C-alpha cells in the first residue's frame, strides 16, 4: 500500500504531528487568533478549531511551504471566516472585550491617554481595521518577513508593503491625534 492511501488510515502518526505542532505553536496560534477576535474565550475556541482543521487537512500538506506557513494560513482563514460569519449574524456590532471600558465618567480617549505607552500601543494596533492590523501584527509582533506574510495572507508582496505603509500612517495619526 502506498503512502497516499495509508495516510487516510494512519491515525496515530497524524496525532503525533498535531501534538508536536501544538507544543511548538499552540501559544502563538492562540495569540494570533486573539489579534483577530479580541476576546480570550473566542480565541481559545478558534485555536481548537484551527488544530482540528489542521488535523483534517494534514494530508494536503505537500511540504512545498514551511509547515508554519501552512498552519498560519489555516489559522488566519479560520479567524477571518469566523469574523465574516459573525458580522453576517450580528447586524449591530456589539462590544468586543478590547474596547477599553474604563471609568464610565471618562471618554475612551481620556482614559487611553492615561495609560502607559505599552497599553496605548497595543490599543491602537488592536483598534486598526483588520487588514491593517494583521500586517502590523505579523510584521512587528511575529517578525515575519514580507514574502511569508504575502503567502499566509494570500496577497502579493506589494500589497503587503502598501498596507504596512498605510497601517503605520494610521497608527501615527492616532498616536499624534
Amino acid at each position, binding site marked *: 500500500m502506498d503512502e497516499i492511501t495509508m495516510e487516510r488510515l494512519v491515525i496515530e502518526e497524524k496525532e503525533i504531528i498535531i501534538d508536536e505542532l501544538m507544543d511548538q505553536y499552540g501559544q502563538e496560534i492562540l495569540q494570533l487568533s*486573539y489579534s483577530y477576535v479580541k476576546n480570550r474565550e473566542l480565541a481559545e475556541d478558534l485555536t*481548537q478549531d484551527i488544530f482540528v482543521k489542521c488535523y483534517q487537512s494534514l494530508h494536503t500538506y505537500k511540504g512545498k511551504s514551511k509547515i508554519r506557513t501552512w498552519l498560519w494560513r489555516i489559522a488566519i482563514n479560520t479567524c477571518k471566516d469566523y469574523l465574516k460569519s459573525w458580522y453576517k449574524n450580528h447586524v449591530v456590532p456589539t462590544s468586543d472585550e478590547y474596547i477599553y471600558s474604563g471609568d464610565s465618567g471618562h471618554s475612551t480617549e481620556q482614559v487611553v491617554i492615561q495609560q502607559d505607552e505599552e497599553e496605548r500601543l497595543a490599543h491602537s494596533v488592536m483598534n486598526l481595521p483588520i487588514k491593517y492590523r494583521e500586517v502590523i501584527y505579523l510584521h512587528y509582533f511575529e*517578525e515575519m518577513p514580507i514574502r511569508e506574510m504575502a503567502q499566509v495572507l494570500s496577497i502579493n508582496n506589494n500589497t503587503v508593503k502598501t498596507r504596512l505603509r498605510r497601517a503605520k500612517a494610521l497608527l501615527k495619526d492616532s498616536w499624534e491625534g
Partner: protein
Amino acid sequence: MEERLKGLKKAMKETCMRELDFSETMKKSIHNSIAKESFSEQNMFINLLQLLVKERTGFELTRLLVVRGIRKFEDEEGSIYALLHEQEQAGTIIASWGPSGEKKYQLTDKGRRVLEKSGEQVWRASLTLRGQAER
C-alpha cells in the same frame, strides 16, 4: 512609529494578551475532538470503499452514505468529488463514463486490498457505530 512598533510584542504580551495561555487542558480538549473526528473520518472512508465494490456515481454515493449515517457530503455536494479524485489519484478507485455521460467510480484491485486490510477496522468501526445508534 517604526521604533515604537519594535516594542509591540512586549507591549501586547504585557497588556491585552496577558491572560492568554495555551494550557494542557486546551491541548487535551483538542486531542479529544481529533479522536472523534478521526473515528468518523475513518469510518466514512471505509464505508466509501465498501460502497464502491459496485460501480456508483458520486450522487449515488452521497445518498448511500447518508443512509449509513454519514452526512458529511450532504451539505457540501462538491466535497465527495474531491475525495473521489484523491482516491483515483491514489489508485484505489477507477472512474469511467456511463452511457448518459455520468462519471462512475469503482474499486480497483488495489482498493480491494486496502479494504481487506482495513477489514477488521471496518468491522469494529461499524459495530461501534451501530452500538451507538441503538443506544
